[in-house]
């Protein structure tokens, strides 16, 4: 279970202050596949970062009762001057994972071939996404945080991701920020609408999608 209690997040820049999330409460159970719906800048990525522990809430408390992946997004925490292999080795080390297995999986999943021995800064965003995705799938988590990423990459990669995530790992918890209504309708069983700092939870995904489209 992931419990968010009275979460608020605001960013300060000089004298200006922006309240992104305002006293948000929700519970995500094991096996829930939650879609985060909201317009650009509504706070989807912020919420994912808070759940993932990348940033800290200004106030409130998040209790994590399961292992949670790092947020899968475009940037994804790579060191540009290191190679794909180096980054994989780093991830394997900090998660206490066997590097040989990891390497084999990453090579197979990313299909990047010799590019893996090149610095990550030479990768295109699609290639980065492949690497980020492979690394997080190589380590098993109870809950995956996904920020739009399955929509980048070519057809073949998208199919692979959907297979790995939504078929092989369909028992896992997922929190997915997406603008793609199709993906949301197809895979999610819950939806949160984020609007003006508030989060409203819906068990009926179709209903939530309709409301979101009307925003």
């Amino acid at each position, binding site marked *: 279970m992931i419990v968010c209690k009275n979460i608020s997040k605001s*960013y*300060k820049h000089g004298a200006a202050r922006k309240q992104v999330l305002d006293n948000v409460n929700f519970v995500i159970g094991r096996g829930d596949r939650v879609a985060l719906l909201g317009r650009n800048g509504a706070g989807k990525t912020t919420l994912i*970062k808070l759940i*993932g*522990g*990348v*940033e*800290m809430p*200004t106030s409130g408390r998040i209790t994590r009762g399961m292992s*949670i992946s*790092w*947020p899968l997004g475009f*940037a*994804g*925490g*790579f*060191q540009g*001057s*290191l190679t794909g292999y*180096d980054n994989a080795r*780093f*991830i394997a*080390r*900090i*998660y*206490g994972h066997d590097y040989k297995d990891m390497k084999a999986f990453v090579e197979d999943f990313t299909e990047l071939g010799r590019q893996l021995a090149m610095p990550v800064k030479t990768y295109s965003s699609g290639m980065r996404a492949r690497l980020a995705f492979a690394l997080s799938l190589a380590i098993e988590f109870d809950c995956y945080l996904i920020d739009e990423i399955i929509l980048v990459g070519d057809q073949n990669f998208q199919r692979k991701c959907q297979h790995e995530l939504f078929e092989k790992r369909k028992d896992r918890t997922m929190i997915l920020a997406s603008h793609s209504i199709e993906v949301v309708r197809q895979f999610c069983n819950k939806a949160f609408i984020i609007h003006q700092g508030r989060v409203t939870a819906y068990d009926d995904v179709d209903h939530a999608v309709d409301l979101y489209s009307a925003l």
Partner: protein
Amino acid sequence: MSGNTLHRLKNGWRVQVRVIHALMIRELHTRFGRENIGFLWIMVEPLLFAGLVAIIWRFLKGPDEHGMSIIAFVISGYIPITLFRHGVSRSVSIFVANSSLMYHRQVKIIDFVLVRFLIEVLGSMMAYVFIATILILFDQFPLPSDPGLFVAGWTLYSLFTLSLCFMIAPLSELSEILEKFIPVTTYVMVPFSGLFTMASWLSPKMREYLLWSPFVNAMEMMRKGIWGDQITAYYNIWNPLGCSLVATVLGLALCRKVRKTMTVE
């Protein structure tokens, strides 16, 4: 209940060691690459600095100073000060530079400070051992008369440097002005680091003031450990210990505050 806590503590320690190890390798790779002598570069800089300054002093001031070999004296002062200056300058903006690593929850921001500091300590220790061994062979450096005291002094010096890094890292994040003052501050404090003088050379009044500096206390210990009965040293181990403790507590509190408001791209 207590068994559970112990288990969690052990687990936490394991994760911490794993993270530090991974970060060290990553830092060494990004900073020095894998070509030529690779990570051995970490000792080259303090080595060159202390070595060259020692040679200049040897020609400017003659072979001895107050009965100590001038080369040995300069080296015993410059290697620690290099550790301090590098440690401090490496801590500036360290969180921004590493912020992408915050994606992994087990990585804490103080790990970055710790890792960079460990690398500097390793480098200067290697440089020290290397240069002292060579000089001992050529009879330019005394065999340490009390290695234990020397190591204790070195440890206190490092500890205080680390505790300053814990403060400077978050402060540089909070204020950009601070960053501009750091180079001049580290330069101005050189005379107060015990680099050029032994406390016993000074008037009692001056000595009293100088011994307020934790660096001077640690430096006196190191030199006493090297020269033993040939010199008189003044030190109080509680000064560097106490200062380190205070600076660490303040620093960790600042780190916590910075972490709360840190934005990660």
